[in-house]
Structure formats: C-alpha cells, structure tokens
C-alpha cells in the first residue's frame, strides 16, 4: 500500500483507489540501486553549478522528483495520490493562493520537507515500500532549492539546443588543439583534474576507423601505407583516410545496420507462422541513401511519408518500408484488426523512440508516468499512422519504362489474340483430327496444353498450339515464334521483378479513438492527428493532416529532440555509450548528458550544416577524443578512481564488434569475402536443426557461389529463428526497435567461433595463408598489427589450422580497439 502525502487528506485515500493505479505504482518501484546511481551521477556531473552554491532545478532537482515522486504525484491523473502533483509549480505550491506542500523560500514551512525528514515509516516520503529513498545530501539539495525560491524551469531536453560558446584554445589542456569536440571534452576533464590519453598508434587507428566507418578491417598494404603517411603528416594522413572511407560504398553497408536495428528490419513476418517476406529493397534503399549522404531530414521524410510526397518516385515509396517492418500475424483463428492496431502501436512507439528519444509508447494505456505526454496525445499521434493501406509494390530496375513495356506487351497480346481468334475453327479441327501417331511428334509442352480443358488454357498456351499446328503443316512459324518470344520477354520484364512492402495513404481516413487502457475493444473519445504539446508547435495549412506533416514536424529546426537524439546515437557507436546513456529516453527519468554543451554543439552544428551524416562522422572521427588510445595505462589510475566507466572520455573504449562484423572480419581475414552489394538476402550455412525450432519448419537452402560468403548484413533473418551465429553475438531479431545492442560475452560465442562450420571453413582458408605467407601475415590479417615475440612464441610449433583457428578466436580479432 502507498501512504498519503499529508495526514489531513488520509480520507481521500481511504475513499478507495483504483486497483489499476496501485499496480502502476508498483511497476515503477525501483530498488535503491538506481537512487544511488542517480545520486552519484547528479553529484558527479553537476560540477560547476554545485560550487556556485545555487541549485539548478532541471539538472539537480527534477531528476530527484521524477524518480522518487512522479509515479504517484506526477502527470498521470489516474495514478495521482492525494490529489497532489509535484511536476508543476502550481501543484507543488498551490500557485498564487498558496497552501501547497512547498512554500517557496521557506523550507521549514513546507510540508514536503517535514515528510522527507520524517522517521515515521507511515509518514516519510517516498514511502519505504516503494523501494525508493533520498539520501541526506539529496534532501539538503531539495531544501536548498526550496529556500532559494523553488523555481521550476523546463527539463533540459525539451528546450531547443543553442550553440554553446567554445572555450578559447588557451583553456583547453592542449594549446594546439582546436577541434571543438576536444575543447569541450578536455574542458570537462580539466574540471575534475584529468587529462586525455595519448593518441593510439597508427595501426590501431586505421583498424579502428575502418571498422567504424565501413565495418571492414584494413588490408596489410593499407596499414603500411597509412603508417608511412602518418609519420609524414598525421593530420593530412588522417583526413585522407577518413575521406577515402566515407567515399567507400561499404560505408553505407556498415551504417545501414545501425539504422536497420532501429527500423526493426528482418526478412520474415514474425509471430508464430513467421513466413518469409520480401522487403530487402528497403534495406538496399537505406544503404544507398547513406552512401549518397541523403540529408537526414529528407531521409526521415521519405521513410515516414515518401508515398505522400508530390510525384513520389519508386525510391521514395520503397523508403516507407521503414514502418512496414512490423510483424504480421498469420495464425489461424485470430482477429486481424487486433494485430493491425498492434502494428500501429508499434509504429507510434518506434517513431517516438527513434526520432524523439521519448517513450511515447508508455502513454498507450494511461497518461505517461513521468513525461508530460497524455494518453490522448498518444492517440493523436496514432491517428497519423491509422490511415494507410499496406501493399507491396514491384520495383523495376532503374530506367525501366514500365508504361512503354506495358503498351508494347498489350500490342503484342492483341496481335496474338487476333491470330488465335482468326484461327479458332482450324485450330479446333486440327486438335480433333490429331491421331495418336501425330501426337508423338508434338512437343511435351504442347501436349500438356492439349490435356487441359479449353477454358483453362491461357493466351500464351493457345498460341503455342497455333504455332504447333502451323509447324506440323510445314508452314513458316518464324514470325509467330518471334512474336511469342517477345511476348514472354515482355511479361518477364513486367512481372519477374522483386516486390517490397510499403505504406500507401488511403483516400478516406479511418476514424481514430482513444482506447481505454490500450484495449482495442474499448474505443472512447474520437481524436484527430496531432503531435506532442510538450515539444515545438505543430503548424499545418491543410485541413487533412497526414504523415507528411508529422515527418516535417519531426525535422523542423525548432524540434529540441531529434538532432540531439540522433547525434547521441551516432556518438554511442564510437564510444560504446552515448553522452546520454539512456539513448532511447531523453525524458524526465532518462539519464542526463555527460557533456550537455558538446551534445548541443554537435546537434546545432549538424543541423546547420545540412543534416549530413557523413559530415557528422567526419567531425567525430577527426577529434583526438576519438583517436585516443583505448589501453589502460598506469597513468590512468586517478581517472579510474574518479570515473571507472570512462564516461568523461579520458581514453577510448575497446568495443566488441557487432555480430555481423564478427563474420565480416573473419571473412576478410580468410580472404573469402564477397564484395557483392545489395540484392536478396542470402543463406550461408547454419547448423542442422536450427530451422526446426519454429512452429513452421522453414527451408534454409544454402546459397552457392559467392553468396555463401556475403557480409553478415545480407544474411536472411527469420525473426522466430534468427541465424545462430548472429544471435549469439547479440544481433537483434527485429521484434522491436533496437537503439543499442547489448554486448554479451558467453561460452556459446566461444563454441561458435571454435566449431561453427562457417568459421571452421574460414579457418581452413586462413590456414592456407599461414602456410603460404606465414604466421605474421595471418596475424596481421586478423588484428592489423604485427605480433610481438611472446605472441609469436605462443603460436610457434602449432599446425597451421590451429594457428588459423586461434587467430580467428582472439578477443582482439572480434574487438574494435
């Protein structure tokens, strides 16, 4: 049970609380761990504000209130206890009339403070059974804040970023260092008297940046040449290397996977039937869009609403596959509408997570517990996505003139039809007159047509009879055959093309209502499309508001969220964790940025520079912060004591490669990698019996030729039975948007690298390289560096296959250092 906040309103609690409300309180209970963690981060990252003896509400107080109070005294009216809300100044202080639990400027007169301090378990706030509590320091902070006037200002993330002033170069620890990222990171380090690490050695650097930008390790020659260039002029060598990598077509493959995780892309329908689907054209669209550096605002618009753009071309329609990556339930006995609604819930939640960094999905059943997002707003957002059909379209090769093909096909078809109609009687007579003897000389294909009843014969089949009749009569059939061939070729060009799943707006909008508790069988108030009121305004001139308006609202320069969210998610790829550690939650209970000024600077710089992802990558990887060593040096002891998790970036982090790259590196090292790009997903070997684990046993016919050795990105993914060697390294299955992969470290990974037939095949190929070119070369192909004497000694005396297997199994081989 939860306790009332104030004794005099106990009765309101006893009047009976909704069970639902109670349960909502329960789920938000957290252990003390988080409180401690938060405490640490608040003290740790509050830095200068603390020393100036003033309290920053947004930075220091709001997180405390959000975590400890808002579940019962926040935005959600349903769950609100004692009719008290602490998320608004009016709620807390009673506004001008006063009488609230906070008396601004007078902590001692504030009932809230009394309750914070109480040692009576029935009175103290937060109640002990919620598992939450405040430390003495946190209480003092709240008291100080009340005494200083209890001013409420906005949560940092809801205020649009402004370009912060950069410290002058003299303030940076290194006089010569003018890179804005380094200036801001080094300033932060200097505040806690830490210094950045030295740069990594050039071999490590080229491997690092190659894996980060294109997902492939450098060749031996590339390493050697880079080392030479680096010795001559570091900055020039680095700039040229980065430009080369950003210009590589493999860049799109590497970063597509980052985006496809968020898009919950996979190649099957999910749920229990999990049938294969064709949506790889969308995957190729992402690769291509990244390679041509389509600006992120346009990238967004095309994916959310490409079909609604004026004169939308095929590519823009293909882009709407983003929101077709939801599951489709094909099980017997289901209610289809239920699962259509579920897929829209998914689209709303995913849009919120991916572009806004907000847990909009939390408001499906009730007002959001922490962030000011009402349940009604959730359904206004829902309304944008409730108005499309979900077809597949054919995607013709570029430059195909479909209209011309169709009109020619129709022309030929009409000619054929006329020929057949004209010969209807002779054909009939011919067929009736055919003796068994005659039939012997007839081709099998024609015999088959003859076996069919008249009304089951297609046009092309009838035509083949006509040709056969004339051939037997020893008439020339050349022109007929040419016509037939052209017809077949045209049909093939028109029909034998890949399809992909897209969104297509309906003419008549569906009605959207709020669903009580998120239950689609319980519709209530009708709503129209709308955005979140806590963010920037939504303007539209049109009466009919569509997904296109939503997409434009998202990439509006006034949006405080999107640029920060995406910049942070790019940053996290380079350092293992974002400046905002909760990369999918920038809301009130999300983590605060470790480097708020840097996050804002990058966000503003990125948008003003035209939303170019390539520019953003270049900006980050040319910093010294990125190029620091990831090794733990003796000199780092003090840093370890202050910041064990390296959130302040006093060095780089070693990061285990993503699942697909574990494969790609082994393929490259062993010399087997196919460089083929795009196209239908492929089926490299997987262990026997894997596909039998689903409800419906799916076939896995192993690809032959170079498709056996394609990059991991192209492996077919059944959501229900994902490829084991990808799954074991934490590749997502595409059930929901994945904004950050976990990085586990398990014995099953070891078994995969040691024994899986694919990795064994790679090892056999690498063993030949060991034999032909020596251990050192093989070592370098895996790690991009020369082995030291200890390592060479360890590898000496082993057979070449064991050497090759060992090298592919090294922690270093599957790690970006």
């Amino acid at each position, binding site marked *: 049970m939860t306790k009332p906040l104030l004794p005099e309103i106990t009765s309101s609690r006893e009047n009976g609380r909704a069970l639902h409300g109670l349960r909502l309180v329960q*789920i938000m209970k957290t252990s003390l761990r988080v409180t401690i963690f938060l405490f640490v981060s608040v003290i740790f990252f509050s830095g200068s504000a603390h020393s100036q003896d003033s309290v920053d509400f947004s930075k220091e107080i709001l997180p405390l209130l959000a975590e400890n109070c808002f579940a019962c005294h926040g935005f959600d009216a349903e769950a609100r206890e004692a009719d008290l809300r602490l998320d608004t100044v009016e709620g807390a202080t009673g506004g001008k009339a006063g009488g609230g639990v906070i008396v601004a400027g007078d902590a001692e007169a504030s009932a809230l403070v009394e309750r914070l301090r109480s040692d009576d378990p029935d009175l103290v706030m937060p109640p002990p059974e919620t598992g939450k509590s405040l430390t003495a320091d946190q209480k003092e902070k709240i008291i100080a804040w009340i005494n200083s006037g209890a001013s409420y200002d906005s949560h940092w993330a809801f205020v649009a970023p402004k370009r912060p002033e950069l410290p002058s170069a003299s303030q940076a620890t290194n006089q010569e260092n003018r890179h804005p990222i380094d200036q801001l990171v080094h300033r932060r380090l200097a505040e806690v008297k830490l210094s950045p690490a030295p740069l990594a050695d050039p071999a490590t650097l080229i491997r690092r940046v190659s894996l980060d930008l294109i997902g492939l390790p450098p060749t031996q020659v590339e390493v050697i040449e880079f080392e030479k260039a680096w010795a001559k002029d570091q900055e020039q060598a680095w700039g040229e290397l980065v430009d080369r990598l950003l210009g590589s077509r493999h860049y799109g493959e590497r970063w597509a996977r980052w985006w496809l995780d968020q898009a919950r892309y996979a190649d099957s329908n999910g749920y*229990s039937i999990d049938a294969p689907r064709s949506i790889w054209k969308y995957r190729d669209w992402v690769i291509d869009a990244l390679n041509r550096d389509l600006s992120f605002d346009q990238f967004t618009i095309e994916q959310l609403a490409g079909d609604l753009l004026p004169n939308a071309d095929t590519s823009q329609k293909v882009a709407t596959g983003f929101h077709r990556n939801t599951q489709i339930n094909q099980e017997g006995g289901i209610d289809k509408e239920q699962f259509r609604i579920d897929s829209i819930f998914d689209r709303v939640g995913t849009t919120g997570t991916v572009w806004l960094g907000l847990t909009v999905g939390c408001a499906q059943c009730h007002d959001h517990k922490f962030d000011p997002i009402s349940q009604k707003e959730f359904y206004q957002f829902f309304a944008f996505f409730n108005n499309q059909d979900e077809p597949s379209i054919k995607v013709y090769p570029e430059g195909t003139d479909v209209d011309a093909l169709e009109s020619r096909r129709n022309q030929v078809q009409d000619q054929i039809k006329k020929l057949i109609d004209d010969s209807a009687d002779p054909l009939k007579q011919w067929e009736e007159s055919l003796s068994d003897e005659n039939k012997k000389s007839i081709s099998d294909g024609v015999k088959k047509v003859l076996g069919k009843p008249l009304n089951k014969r297609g046009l092309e089949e009838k035509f083949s009879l006509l040709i056969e009749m004339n051939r037997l009569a020893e008439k020339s059939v050349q022109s007929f055959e040419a016509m037939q061939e052209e017809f077949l070729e045209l049909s093939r060009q028109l029909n034998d093309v890949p399809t992909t799943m897209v969104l297509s707006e309906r003419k008549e909008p569906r009605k959207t209502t709020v669903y009580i508790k998120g239950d689609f069988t319980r519709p209530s108030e009708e709503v129209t499309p709308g955005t979140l009121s806590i963010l920037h305004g939504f303007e539209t001139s049109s009466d009919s508001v569509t997904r296109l308006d939503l997409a434009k609202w998202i990439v509006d320069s006034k949006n405080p969220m999107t640029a920060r969210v995406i910049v942070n998610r790019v940053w996290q790829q380079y350092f293992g964790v974002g400046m905002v550690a909760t990369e999918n939650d920038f809301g009130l209970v999300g983590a605060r940025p470790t480097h708020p000024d840097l996050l804002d600077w990058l966000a503003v710089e990125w948008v003003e520079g035209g939303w170019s992802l390539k520019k953003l990558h270049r900006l980050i990887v040319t910093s010294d912060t990125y190029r620091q060593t990831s090794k733990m040096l003796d000199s780092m002891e003090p840093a370890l004591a202050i910041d064990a998790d390296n959130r302040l970036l006093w060095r780089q982090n070693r990061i285990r490669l993503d699942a697909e790259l574990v494969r790609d590196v082994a393929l490259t090292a062993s010399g087997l990698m196919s460089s083929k790009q795009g196209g239908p997903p492929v089926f490299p070997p997987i262990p026997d019996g894997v596909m039998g684990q689903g409800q419906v046993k799916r076939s896995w016919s192993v690809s032959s030729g170079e498709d056996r050795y394609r990059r991991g990105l192209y492996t077919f993914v059944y959501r229900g039975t994902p490829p084991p060697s990808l799954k074991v390294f934490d590749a997502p299955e595409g059930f929901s948007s994945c904004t950050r992969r976990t990085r586990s470290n*398990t*014995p*099953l*990974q070891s078994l995969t690298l040691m024994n899986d037939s694919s990795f064994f095949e790679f090892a056999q190929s690498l063993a030949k390289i060991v034999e032909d070119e020596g251990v050192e070369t093989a070592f370098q192909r895996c790690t991009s560096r020369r082995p030291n004497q200890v390592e060479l000694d360890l590898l000496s005396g082993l057979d070449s296959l064991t050497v090759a297997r060992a090298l592919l199994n090294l922690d*270093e081989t599957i790690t970006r250092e």
Partner: protein
Amino acid sequence: MWNQNQLRQQTRRHFFGSAAASTGSLGLGSMALQSLMSQEAGAAAKSELDRNPLAPKPTHFAPKAKNVIFLFMAGGPSQLEMFEHKPKLTELNGKPIPDSFIEGKRFAFMDSSHRINLLGSRRTFKQYGESGAYVSDLLPWTSEIVDDISIVKTLQADLFNHAPAKLFMNTGSGQFGRPSIGSWVTYGIGSECEDLPGFVVLQSGPRGPRGGAVLWGNGMLPSTYQGVPLRNQGDPILNLSTPETVSADQQRRLVDVVNQLNQERLRQTGDGEIAARINAYEMAYRMQTSAPELMDISDEDQETLDLYGIKDPNESTYARNCLLSRRLIERGVRFVQLYDTNWDHHGGPTETLENHLPSKCRDIDQPSAALVKDLKRRGLLDDTIVIWGGEFGRTPMGEVRQNTGRNHHIDAFTMWLAGGGFKAGQVYGETDDFGFEPVENAVHVHDLHATLLHQLGLDHERLTVRFQGRDFRLTDVHGRVVTDLLA
C-alpha cells in the same frame, strides 16, 4: 533495477565467480591467470559495492526452492478430459451454453468452427489418494501421485491464440521480445552449474512449439540468460562438437593458445572484458565434455529406465527428456523446460479427443509421474518445483471440424505443481458446473509467475530490468503470491 552498466558488472562478476570455482583445468599460465582473476574479482566486487552498497543479495529473501522443471504441454491440454470432473456438463451435452457465460467473450476461430453447444466428457473419473482428487482414466500414473502434487483448476490467461498465449505463459506478455521466466530466474539468481547453461530447453513431439525460440528468449536481458535448447539429435548444443577433422588434443591446444594470447592482450590493454572471455572459453571447453555426458543415460539402471517407461535409451522421447531433466537438476542447472507438442485437440483429422488425446496422455503420463517419484526418492523434490500444464485449456463447448473437439479456453484451466515448498495433496480452486469459469480462488498466470519467483527467493516486483526508459518485470504491473498454494 539494474542499468546496463550494472548488468555488465554483474555479468563479469558471474564469470569471475565461475572462474574462481574452476581450478586447474587451464594449462600453461593458469596460475597467473587465476591470481589476476581473483584480483580482478575483488576489484569488481569492490567497485560494485562502491557503486551500490545496497546491492541485492543473490535472492531477495530466503528461497524455498532452487530449481524449476516446467513440463509444457504445448497446444492446450483438455482439463475436461483429464482433471475436471463435470457431471452437469455430461448431462447437458449438446445443449447450448447459457448466454450469460459467453456474452462479450472472444474466442479463437469465432468465424468458423467455434460452437456454443456444450460437450460432455466421455472419460471416466475417479477420486484418488488422501486428497480425493479427481483424475480421469487417461492418466493412471498421475493418479498415483495426487498426494504429492497441487492441482490448480482455476488458472486464467489473457490471450487465446497459441503463439501469444505461449509467450504469455512464458514471459507474462503476448508481445514478442520479452524475457522468458527461465531467463528471469537465471538473471535473478544465476546458476550453480559450472559447465552447462543455466536455463535449458528440451523438446519432444512432431515439431517445435508455436512461437519457437522466442519462448525461451532472453528479451531485453543479456543473452547470457537465454534458454539453450539441448537437442536430441546431432550436437546437444549448437556447435558443441569439435569439427570432425580436429583431434581432441588439437582442440585442447586451441583453447590453451587462445587463452594465452588473450591473456597477453589483457596484459597489454588492461581490459577486464578479456578476462571474462578467457573464462568463457574455459567453460565452453568444459561444456564440450559435460553436455555429451549428460545426454548419455547409459549409466542409469534398468529400474530407473522402467520407472520412466524408457524402452530405448537412445530414442528421443518425452520420457527420456524427463529423465534428462532430473540429470540436469542434479548438475545444478537452474531452470529446465520440457516442451511436448501436439496438444491442440480441435477435432480435426489428427486432433481428436477420442484417439489423439489419449495417445498424447500415454506419452506423458508415466514419465511425468516418474519424474516426481524419482526426484522425491532422491531428496531433490524439496528444492525443485515441477510444473505441468499448457498455455491454456479447452472450452466446455464443442467445436466441430471433421470430428468434435474443443476450442481454446483461457478463463479456467488446470495445471499441477509439485515440490519446491508447494503444498502436496491439494486441489485448489473451483469452477462452475461446466468448468467455464472459476467460482473461487482464480489464479492468473501473473499470480503463478509471482508465486514461482517467490519460492525461488525473488520478489516479482523487485526483479526488474530497465529498457527503453521503463522498468520491465515478468509480472508487468500485476501478480500476487498465492500463499494458499504454499506449504
């Protein structure tokens, strides 16, 4: 709530802990490695303490049970043919069910084969044991253990299609991508086994269960906690076997050299994650031996094989899986789940109540009872929970396909529990005359989950993981511990 960082620490501690317990198996350099690990382990534990002095103990409170064996009858076994004796239903056979029962309810196949006429059971029911529990003639062996088990007749679920319902029974949610109960348990209390995964899945029946591998998925928990299927054919664990052309000696040397090189890199970089990887290779190597040993039941005596009804020890059957589950528990594996498929008796050509259901019952009756008896006589039942049941039960109304069968039913269905501090010899909950709905003591799936976690020493409200800005738990926002079920 554990954030990702803490999870990482936890995972590392887990592996360091295992490393400390496994001595000597590493060749050259094992001493140095060990001393390094113990230092690191000390540092990791200390840093965990520094970070959070209130870090939860391995369990939230003293546990009653250590292990779980979940016998999952995939498809939805008919409680009305097995445990629910309903003379009134038989009496009113063929009559429509009163509207009051089904008003506003939704069923599977509503537009086709679903019917509203009552269908009486043709089975014979008798009371057994001191508890006097009713069991039908389909389960003669189970009738012998009624005084060792709690039969719960009032289970309730939320979802009535197979895959979502199976997910619901396993994860507390119909959404794909949530952690399964076995993952939650190993996440919550780890495993005592050094050389096998903590959460193991065994399968029998003609195909995989509907929903597939997501039923034992780790969801938003680290993949360390995913269920690992032990397969009856081929490698018991994927990629367990050394490649054919590689000798045992070569494999041992591979593990040694990989670990030595990794140790050298650890020295160069100081990254503790490498120590965890060294340990993973050791465990992987041990698994290569221990898993085949586990699967080889030739060391079991004839009496035991007869108890389970195992005729051919090499044949993959539910009976063999029951015996394997005991062997897994003996080795310290925390959570074992057996799936037996084809319990979906709608009345189609291969799914009749008359022939196919009895055949399924013959497959599972003796082995399930034997498992309880065997665990009991070995003193393992006290701290092992055995659960029997499916994702839902079946309707009192008939469904008409080629034959008469029963549709999916989620308002009241039967499961039984044994051992692990659950009351023995109890029949819990009562349903109405048709077995349509509970009239007392309903037990929702969330309640079952809360109760299972409770017996393992875990508070279902405190066992959470934060993901996409929200704390997730097995019981979502629901669940209560059903103390009536506990001894």
